[in-house]
């Protein structure tokens, strides 16, 4: 998810703003994210898609959200940026999702995208500028109206005041006039010491509706005249639909239509149950196609042999070969991170109404423009005739960065004249996921005679997601995501070589997954650091500290996490403390985890302490929530998750065979903010996830002396609690 953020060089962080009279009166403040072709400021036409702020004559203030809310709290975070400078309290503001429009294109990704923990980072400056510009223009309008100098007016809580004369006008009353004011250039921003909202933790703006059932996720869309269909695709990629029992399906109560694609079928009816029962009756048969021999074993074999080759060199400092050869202590290891499903709780779904000349799409997507293009490609309609109504997403984790499912739904929906909601069952959602790649990492490191790291050679082998998603983003054939978190470690390493071997898995489509490159690479790096610490007979905390000579922020979070967790304290038998440090998404984070491993290999997670420095903190409670949730997400994976394949098909299908962490096994998680307000702002959505696997592996080692280099851990410990080598 980081990837889209890195495709283009980071551009100026200043927004180019436009103001206009809104339809029906009022101020419409639009923003143009610089660096993209063409300014798209609109006049006060009915449709002003690139607006950030709309202030109606009646006083209603609307913020238009160009990022989609998937649970990360971004609606609130972004609203805080606007509201801080606009001087309005959050309870006076309404939020609206932005439509799919090029104007909302992310400044650096070249795409309208929510991902890469980039939402706050991308908005930090431009949206505060937008809020400030609007405020200044409103003040300007008031001062003109009252014929007083602007400098004698202040904006407060949705109104402009003139304290000397005790006059006051609400923003609504000034909105029309404000639209005609000159946009300030440059836009002065508040000094952080004056922040009233930023840095506080207000009630989240999206959650009230989520607490009483009124929030509308994509799955909840209801359109007049709509029917509902269940989609089933060939369980083996590249296979085809051979046949099905149309008659039986149509006899199912409530079933009205059946439509097919070469590799999929949708049974449509009056309600989801008709669609589900109808699909059972339809009993589709498949020609499994060329990949039906694929299995986990063939995948591993392919990765293993690909990993023998030299890859694309991503980093090369010093003479690694010589340094390794002369290292008195050297560790060679292979780390394996399996295929993963996203398994967001809301399964994939798309509601469409495709007409001969236009279309509407209701969906929760991280990439509305791509979604629109998918529908255009499927229907032949021009994109501007297609309206994407973006919705709340019931968990993204990277899954909704891909829009293929929307294309599939559009090709099915265009075969019927009515609006139709097409959904995947949980089974379909897991089996047909675009999986997080399997990464196979070879790593060799050597210590010098003082016990310091001398040489480091890390070769990662796996799918390059970017090669499919945005091939133009590859740099000399390298997907930088494959090595993110591996090339730049927090540690001083004199000779370091990183390589990446692209190995696309047969019959599997891959996609980013929460924490992307760092989630897999930090597992390898922090595991290896721990291995080296133990090999050198040094405490893992001190070993890290000794190598943090150039990373003061790293040192700070590491020490804080260790202090909070009571590093070094005596522990009950079977307990162990693990530690892991990383820098990703412009955040520094260190985590200490206490685990207990029982005699039968059962793992209990006791408590995690994460210290984090993410630069300026907009919404501290959301930072805590994201670290907590992100850790649980990552710990779930590290303990339990792996998608395996047999006969070309994913073997997992629902929560009875793809295990989720539950409340009764979640550890206590404490988050300690030690942020540096002057540093660059970081993104927090994935930081917790990144830390999970390495800190758990290191804690298990501390508790048992067993080094686990393959995810998931729980089955390995349970099947072989003592860690005996098999003969």
């Amino acid at each position, binding site marked *: 998810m980081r990837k889209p953020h890195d495709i283009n060089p980071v551009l100026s962080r200043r927004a180019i703003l436009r103001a206009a009279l809104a339809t029906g009166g009022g101020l419409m403040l639009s923003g143009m994210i610089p660096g993209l072709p063409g300014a798209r400021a609109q006049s006060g036409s009915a449709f002003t898609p690139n607006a950030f702020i709309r202030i109606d004559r009646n006083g209603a203030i609307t913020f238009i959200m160009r990022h989609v809310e998937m649970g990360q709290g971004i609606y609130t975070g972004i609203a805080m940026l606007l509201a801080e400078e606009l001087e309005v309290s959050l309870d006076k503001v309404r939020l609206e999702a932005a439509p799919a429009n090029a104007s909302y294109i992310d400044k650096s990704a070249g795409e309208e995208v929510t991902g890469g923990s980039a939402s706050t980072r991308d908005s930090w400056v431009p949206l505060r500028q937008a809020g400030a510009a609007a405020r200044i223009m409103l003040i300007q309008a008031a001062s003109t109206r009252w014929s007083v100098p602007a400098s004698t007016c202040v904006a407060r809580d949705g109104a402009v005041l003139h304290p000397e004369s005790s006059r006051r006008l609400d923003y609504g009353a000034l909105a029309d006039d404000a639209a005609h004011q000159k946009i300030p250039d440059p836009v002065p921003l508040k000094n952080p010491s004056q922040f009233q909202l930023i840095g506080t933790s207000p009630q989240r703006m999206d959650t009230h509706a989520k607490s009483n059932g009124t929030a509308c996720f994509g799955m909840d869309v209801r359109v007049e005249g709509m029917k509902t269909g269940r989609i089933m695709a060939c369980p083996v990629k590249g296979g085809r639909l051979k046949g099905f029992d149309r008659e*039986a399906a149509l*006899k199912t109560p409530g079933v009205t239509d059946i439509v097919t694609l070469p590799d999929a079928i949708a049974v449509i009816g009056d309600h989801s149950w008709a669609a589900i029962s109808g699909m059972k009756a339809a*009993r589709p048969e498949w020609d499994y196609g060329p990949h039906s021999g694929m299995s986990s074993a063939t995948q591993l074999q392919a990765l293993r042999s690909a990993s023998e080759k030299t890859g694309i060199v991503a980093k090369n400092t010093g003479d690694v070969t010589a340094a390794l050869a002369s290292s008195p202590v050297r560790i060679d290891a292979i780390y394996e991170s399996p295929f993963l499903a996203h398994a967001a709780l809301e399964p994939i779904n798309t509601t469409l109404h495709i007409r001969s000349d236009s279309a509407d799409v209701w969906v929760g997507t991280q990439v509305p423009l791509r979604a629109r293009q998918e529908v255009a490609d499927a229907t032949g309609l021009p994109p501007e005739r297609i309206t994407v109504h973006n919705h709340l997403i019931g968990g993204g984790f990277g899954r909704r960065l891909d829009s293929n499912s929307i294309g599939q739904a559009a090709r099915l929906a265009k075969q019927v004249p009515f609006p139709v909601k097409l959904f995947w069952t949980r089974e379909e959602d897991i089996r047909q996921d675009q999986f997080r790649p399997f990464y196979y990492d070879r790593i060799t490191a050597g210590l010098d005679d003082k016990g310091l790291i001398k040489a480091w050679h890390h070769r990662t082998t796996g799918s390059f997601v970017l090669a499919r998603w945005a091939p133009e983003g590859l740099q000399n054939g390298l997907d930088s995501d494959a090595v993110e978190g591996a090339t730049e470690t927090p540690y001083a390493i004199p000779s370091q070589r990183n390589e990446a071997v692209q190995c696309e898995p047969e019959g599997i489509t891959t996609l980013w997954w929460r924490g992307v490159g760092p989630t897999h690479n930090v597992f390898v790096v922090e595991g290896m650091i721990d291995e080296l610490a133990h090999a050198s007979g040094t405490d893992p905390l001190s070993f890290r500290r000794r190598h943090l000579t150039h990373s003061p922020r790293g040192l700070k979070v590491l020490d804080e996490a260790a202090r909070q967790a009571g590093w070094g304290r005596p522990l009950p038998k079977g307990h162990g403390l693990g530690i892991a440090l990383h820098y990703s998404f412009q955040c520094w984070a260190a985590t200490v985890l206490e685990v207990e491993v029982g005699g*039968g*290999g*059962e793992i209990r997670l006791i408590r995690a302490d994460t210290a984090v420095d993410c630069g300026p903190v907009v919404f501290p409670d959301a930072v805590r929530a994201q670290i907590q949730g992100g850790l649980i997400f990552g710990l779930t994976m590290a303990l*339990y998750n792996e998608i395996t394949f047999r006969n070309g098909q994913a*073997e*997992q299908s*629902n*929560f*009875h*065979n*793809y*295990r989720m962490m*539950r409340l*009764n*096994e979640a550890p206590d998680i404490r988050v300690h903010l030690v942020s540096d307000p002057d540093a660059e702002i970081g993104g927090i959505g994935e930081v917790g996830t990144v830390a999970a696997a390495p800190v758990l592996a290191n804690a298990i080692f501390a508790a048992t002396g067993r080094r686990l280099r393959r995810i998931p851990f*729980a*089955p390995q410990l*349970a*099947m072989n609690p003592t860690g005996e080598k098999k003969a």
Partner: protein
Amino acid sequence: MRGAMRRNVPAPGTRFLRAICLGSTLLTLGALDAGRGARAETSPSGDTSPPDGQRDGNDQVSRGQALFIAADCAACHLSADGRALTGGRAFTLPFGTIHAVNITPDRDTGIGAYSDSDWLAMLRKGVGRNGKHLYPVMPYTSYTLLSDEDALAIKAYLFTLPPLRATPPMNALSFPFNQRWTMIFWNWFNNPNRRMTPDPARSAAWNRGAYLTEALGHCGQCHTPRNFMFGLSHRAYAGAVQVGWTAYNLTSDREHGLGGWSDDALFSYLSAGQARNHGPASGPMAEAIEHSLSRLPAQDIRDMIVYLRSVPARADGPAHHEGALEPDSGFSEGRHVFQQACAGCHLENGTGRQSDWGALGGSHSLSDPSATNLVAVLREGTSLQTDHGRMSMQGFTAVYTPKELSALSGWMLRHFGGVQATIDPKKFRP
């Protein structure tokens, strides 16, 4: 199609079964037997046209369908997708694996070439049309009790189905069990090869119940322990383990058998697959209920209960405890898993959440220290079609480790059945 079949087997079909049992067939069984047998033998071998002498052709077919249901042929002979009687299902027995055959009227791969006499010989003597001996997984030692009229009605019904080509996989049996001729000797000892005759000393209900239980329902095939030859022992209905599941004691013993069950509870269990304080049926019993018992007329079930009540008590097998709860405190690995994966349907106290099929408190399987059925259900899952849709549970070996499942089983036995037992985690290995 299961649904469709359910709809296709309305009251009329089942009324016929009532008629049979009430009237002509059973009570005149002895008299009819010889004549029918003789006529069957005169039919030319290879005659596959619908049964002869069809003065009541349609009656015979619908009666046959009802009998087919009562004889629970589908439970074994349905194909894996549950759509046709083409067989294929594997039965893993102590001496190898046997597959159910195709019983659609396909001439080459099914029963299409069977004459009436072939059919009767098969059902009674366990000898197939080709002269090959059947293995007693096919309950011909029960079906032998059927009257000619009933046996041929079943055939008549089967011959109205579309013939489908399908050859089941080869059986894989170890020597000497792969020598079919050895079955000749087995049959000497184990196959009574006689028709059932009513016991005039007993009530009509008892006699009907006996015919339904012994001949058609072949309940003893699972619930009566086998002797060393794999024949049914004399310990009728004392309970036995078959294909990895325990079929519990059905004798009148209060603790071990059905003595403690009320008629209502038995009725509910047999007809709907669950009874308050006895838990739901699972595994093969769930299949017997789904394909057969749930589709019988209520009176038939009541008659079977009358008969079962007369089975002499035997204190064999695990005793049955009802809701012996153990108060819980602190961390228990078993309870921990139960909270996650099981309470969603069964509730912490085992009373069942959304439906009665989720109420497992009092189930015999949960006071069985061998935990055979509990292990089987956790491994394979189970499902049961009811009037309210399909109730099902998945297996859990893919996410929970053998150790966790063993802890779960131990906890459930303590918590719901009041028995202390250690379940070997190996039983949950893939």
